[in-house]
């Protein structure tokens, strides 16, 4: 049976909308204290999966336990112990910032005094105290995002669920959100997030799953996934000449020819890079570290998703 460290356990979890199957019998477990990411292209089934976890969407088939409780029968108890930051701006535009927090707290039956104290603490933590009397419409995208995360913490959740937490934010705001999430992680909070930003997943997540078409393609830490699927280094040649292409094809290396770009998954082969540079004197030959993005593209393909 599960130990105390298991926070979420999904077994053959399935979600379908009529004939369309959004999540195809996936299984995973999330341990206490980790930051767990769902990475995948649009329509991969990430949001459908987390919506089942926070009880907004009924499970079609399979089992889902959160805090050891069955989501099918104890959704209310589970929902009272998690914080959710949805993809869209769900702040209440009819209310100012303080009212947003206090009224949201009332949905959890938190008494007014406690709600007020926690609100001030959270606004302080997210550096938004001076905005406490602002209307939601007056706030920037970055502030709105931080406020939604702050509001999701009003019930002191054991699990924070974030759906695309930095979508549409400028780089400064993204980094500010990441800093705060990092700090929450340090405090021991378990975080579950979906994203299609590789850098976000790589920097925040201890463990992640890559999803596509409703299935889990790979699971592991970002580093483990990179070394498993790509090796550590990649040589990229822009506009490769026919002789270079021919030369490489003669070698026993994993490669991908995209026409205008040749990608060589070269593990530890610094020699190959030097070899290519000296033979073909190609200034458009680049040696770089493999990233999560390479893993992602290998696993999910390069076709556009509509």
């Amino acid at each position, binding site marked *: 049976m599960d130990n105390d460290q298991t926070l979420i356990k999904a077994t053959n979890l399935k979600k379908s909308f009529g004939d369309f199957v959004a999540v195809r019998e996936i299984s995973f477990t999330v341990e206490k204290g980790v930051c767990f990411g769902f990475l995948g292209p649009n329509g991969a089934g990430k949001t459908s999966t987390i919506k089942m976890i926070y009880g*907004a969407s009924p499970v079609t088939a399979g089992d889902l336990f959160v805090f050891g409780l069955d989501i099918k029968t104890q959704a209310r108890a589970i929902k009272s112990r998690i914080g959710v930051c949805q993809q869209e701006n769900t702040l209440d535009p009819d209310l100012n910032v303080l009212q947003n927090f206090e009224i949201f707290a009332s*949905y959890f039956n938190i008494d007014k005094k406690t709600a007020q104290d926690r609100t001030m603490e959270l606004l302080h933590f997210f550096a938004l105290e001076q905005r406490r009397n602002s209307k939601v419409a007056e706030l920037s995208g970055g502030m709105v995002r931080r406020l939604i995360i702050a509001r999701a913490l009003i019930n002191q959740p054991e699990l924070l669920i974030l759906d695309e937490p930095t979508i549409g934010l400028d780089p400064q705001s993204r980094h500010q959100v990441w800093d705060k999430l990092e700090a929450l992680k340090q405090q021991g909070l378990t975080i579950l997030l979906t994203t299609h930003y590789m850098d976000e997943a790589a920097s925040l997540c201890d463990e992640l799953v890559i999803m596509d078409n409703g299935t889990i393609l790979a699971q592991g830490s970002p580093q483990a996934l990179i070394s498993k699927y790509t090796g550590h280094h990649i040589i990229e040649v822009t506009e490769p000449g026919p002789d270079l292409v021919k030369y490489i094809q003669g070698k026993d290396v994993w490669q991908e020819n995209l026409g205008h770009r040749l990608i060589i998954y070269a593990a530890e082969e610094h020699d190959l890079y030097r070899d290519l540079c000296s033979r073909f004197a190609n200034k458009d030959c680049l040696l770089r570290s493999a990233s999560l993005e390479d893993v992602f593209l290998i696993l999910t393909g390069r076709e556009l998703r509509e």
Partner: protein
Amino acid sequence: MKIDISWRFVRVWQRNLAVYRTSWKINFLPPFLEPLFYLIAFGVGFSGLIGNIRYGTTQVSYVSFIAPALVAINIMNNSFFESTYGSFVRMYYQKTFEAMMATPLNAEEIITGEIVWGATKAVIGTVIMLVVISFFGLVSYPVALLIIPVSFLGGIAFGAVGMCFTALVKTIDLFNLPVFLFVTPMFLFGGTFFPLAGLPVWAQQVALILPLTHLVNVVRALNYGLFNSDVVIGIVYLAVFSLLTMPFALSRMQRRLIK
């Protein structure tokens, strides 16, 4: 899906009250001014052309005939428009329900809170209107005080039926259909500005199927200090109407909110 409602729906009601309180001065104006305008227009300007109206075996002035109808119309408008346009904006544009769904609240409680809030607005409007109309000497107390609880029942009936439309419409513009095919005919032909007897028999029968006709009957009788069969029939009608529309509204909204 099964219906599961706890007292937590009050939290949704409180949220709406908090918003209402931030602009209460503006919110108080319509129920205050509307009867005033109507009573002046119809009472001073129009009633000279009409004279008295027969009510049962007695005659009443035209102003005292329409005053209770204005209260009934206000009950309908407050709750119907709150649970149609108001709820739709909160659900579709403001994502207010989406935020609530991620808390211990469930869809049934959100919808119940919305409908009860619409009924509460109907009660607030009714109290203000009764005060205004009382200055014209048109209300028979204490029986007329029963109009206040009736306004809550009427508010539930119209709020629930409005919520049924909210569960069904794809876009906010489609509310024009129930407004012009359901609300406006009731407003004009529900025994409001002229007695039902002025209509052909078939139209009277149609009018008696519709909820506003019954609400007008109840409010008018109570306003004159009467507790007659109109009151009993009307209250039973409104209760049954609520008992039918409420579960439909809840299950349809559940289907709409939970995917």
